[in-house]
């Protein structure tokens, strides 16, 4: 019976190198992507700037007005200059960054939850459930986003209370914006997740789980979902960029977080009348947005390559 016994090590030559988990392989592939690494480092820097910078300047300082030095160009005292009512722009970019980034990441969490929920149920069950969910998805996609934002902003406007987080008070409008961004951006992800589920649910390992008697929810969330992580992660990273930009333009429409609380978006809005005369008003917050989005896109590129199931090489 020696051919059924354990394969002796001398004959077993499939483990030459220490085995790598799929996660490790993905990380190694990501590391080789120079732009992605650059983007990751840049993103890390931006996050540290916004959150650790709070230890250097206080929020009060960021909101401190001083009309005598209004609209002054960058100087040693105010490296990024001052805005229309004399507030230090550097400090405001720090605190503004916190809000913009928090909005970005939180909106993405909402987006992911909605997208996964709808997409997985739709893809796995098919039939009527799929039809209904997908028609809802289509309906929401076809409504212009700005319209939805306006309506939701108006509706939720003053109904959500402020919350305390990481030592500062976030006005209720932040939550509204997070919800609005999240609830208007989950649709493409839902479609992607649905597509993944449609193809994965016919895989033999799903049949095997069904034959074993594994409960359906386990099949959906423990079997199939982990195999569709790749497009979800990519969509999520890009979603952060989308949310940061989204915050910028709804602020520009005047529907975003209201001053004195700073966000990168409403800082640009405040520069509306001084575009040429005081460019530092919009250059700095604008650059931060640009750098954030750029770095996220690079990271997203790298992640997409890293998780490409077709390449089994490192």
């Amino acid at each position: 019976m020696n051919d059924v016994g354990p394969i002796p090590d001398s004959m077993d030559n499939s483990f030459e190198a220490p085995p790598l988990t799929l996660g490790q392989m993905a990380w190694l592939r990501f590391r080789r992507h120079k732009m992605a690494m650059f983007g990751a480092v840049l993103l890390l820097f931006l996050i540290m700037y916004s959150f650790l910078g709070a230890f250097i300047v206080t929020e009060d300082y960021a909101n401190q007005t001083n009309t005598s030095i209004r609209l002054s160009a960058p100087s040693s005292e105010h490296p990024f200059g001052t805005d229309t009512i004399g507030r230090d722009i550097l400090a405001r970019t720090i605190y503004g960054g916190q809000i913009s980034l928090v909005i970005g990441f939180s909106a993405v969490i909402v987006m992911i939850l909605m997208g996964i929920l709808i997409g997985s149920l739709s893809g796995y069950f098919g039939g009527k459930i799929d039809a209904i969910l997908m028609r809802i998805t289509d309906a929401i996609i076809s409504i212009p986003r700005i319209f939805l934002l306006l309506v939701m902003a108006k509706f939720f406007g003053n109904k959500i209370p402020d919350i305390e987080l990481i030592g500062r008070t976030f006005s209720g409008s932040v939550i509204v914006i997070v919800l609005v961004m999240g609830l208007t951006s989950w649709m493409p992800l839902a479609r992607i997740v649905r597509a993944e589920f449609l193809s994965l649910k016919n895989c033999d390992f799903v049949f095997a789980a069904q034959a074993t008697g594994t409960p359906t929810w386990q099949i959906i969330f423990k079997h199939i979902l982990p195999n569709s992580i790749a497009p979800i992660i990519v969509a999520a990273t890009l979603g952060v960029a989308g949310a940061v930009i989204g915050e910028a333009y709804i602020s520009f429409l005047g529907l975003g977080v209201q001053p004195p609380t700073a966000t990168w978006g409403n800082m640009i809005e405040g520069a509306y009348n001084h575009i040429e005369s005081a460019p530092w008003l919009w250059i700095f917050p604008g650059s931060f947005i640009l750098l954030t989005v750029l770095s996220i896109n690079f990271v997203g590129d790298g992640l997409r390559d890293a998780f490409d199931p077709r390449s089994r090489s490192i």
Partner: protein
Amino acid sequence: MISSSTIQSKPLVKVEKLAKHFPVTKGTIFSKKTGILKAVDGVSFQISAGETLGLVGESGCGKSTVGRTMLGLYQATGGSVEIGGHNIGSATGKEKAIIRRSSQMIFQDPFSSLNPRWSVNAIVSEPIRVHKIIKGKKAREERVAELLDLVGLSKRYMNRFPHEFSGGQRQRIGIARALASEPQFIICDEPIAALDVSIQAQVVNLLEDLQKKLGITYLFIAHDLSMVRHICTRVAVMYLGIIMELADSDQLFEDPRHPYTQALLSAVPIPDPEIARERERIVLGGDVPSPINLPGGCRFHTRCPIAREYCSRLAPVWRELKTGHWVYCHEVEPRFLPNE
């Protein structure tokens, strides 16, 4: 060794007139049913405990669909399946769980039958967890080690992932998973088709050893007829959704009666150049008809070398030629025509 002449009063597996039809639709938004694909169209057989029934046929004959419908992975359109006395179609709750525990499946493709994100331990222990056979992580791990040992894999591999293994090793992992719930009945759906020749023998020997050791009953679905003869007690030959001939393994291969079986066997390549030169081949004309548009009467008549005029009008009767040797054909001696 079991031979079908041993009369089993109560077979372990009883399949009666099993049918699985798939609707063929056209259009995406308002889909219209344009036809029915009769993948399985009335299949009946029994398997006694400890026996291995082979189910063979060419692609599109429905043999894989039979296996999956038997386990309830597809909802049967008609007929019934009884495993260990429990009817799959009408089972609910507890009974269903018992059936799931007692019948398992081994799949053809070693690459898609294991979840690439799960470790070997997670994969093999899943049935144990789901059926709550052993409680406690440590105890389950020990059982997984035992199962891996049973299939010839070292327990060192427990925390590795499928992509690190070869095809043959993955099949072993799949077998270990099938054994984890201590089943009485395992459906092997082309388990060796995707493996190298030298590995196929390893896996087949393993399956046979496990049968001897644990008394498992197998349904062996395959298209490699040489391997089927080696491992199966009885063999059923399928064509376009129904069984054409069913007999003891040796009987079928030495004295095939149905013209389709005869043609099939004459086409099987034999690794012996002398025999290959001398053989007579029975060539089947035409192509396999579409299972959406089945020929009338006997569905084999369009390609049958001995078809008569009435074969296109009258469907044959499933009849027993001699003990344990059944055939679906008018013309096989003694001829038998159903009443019109």
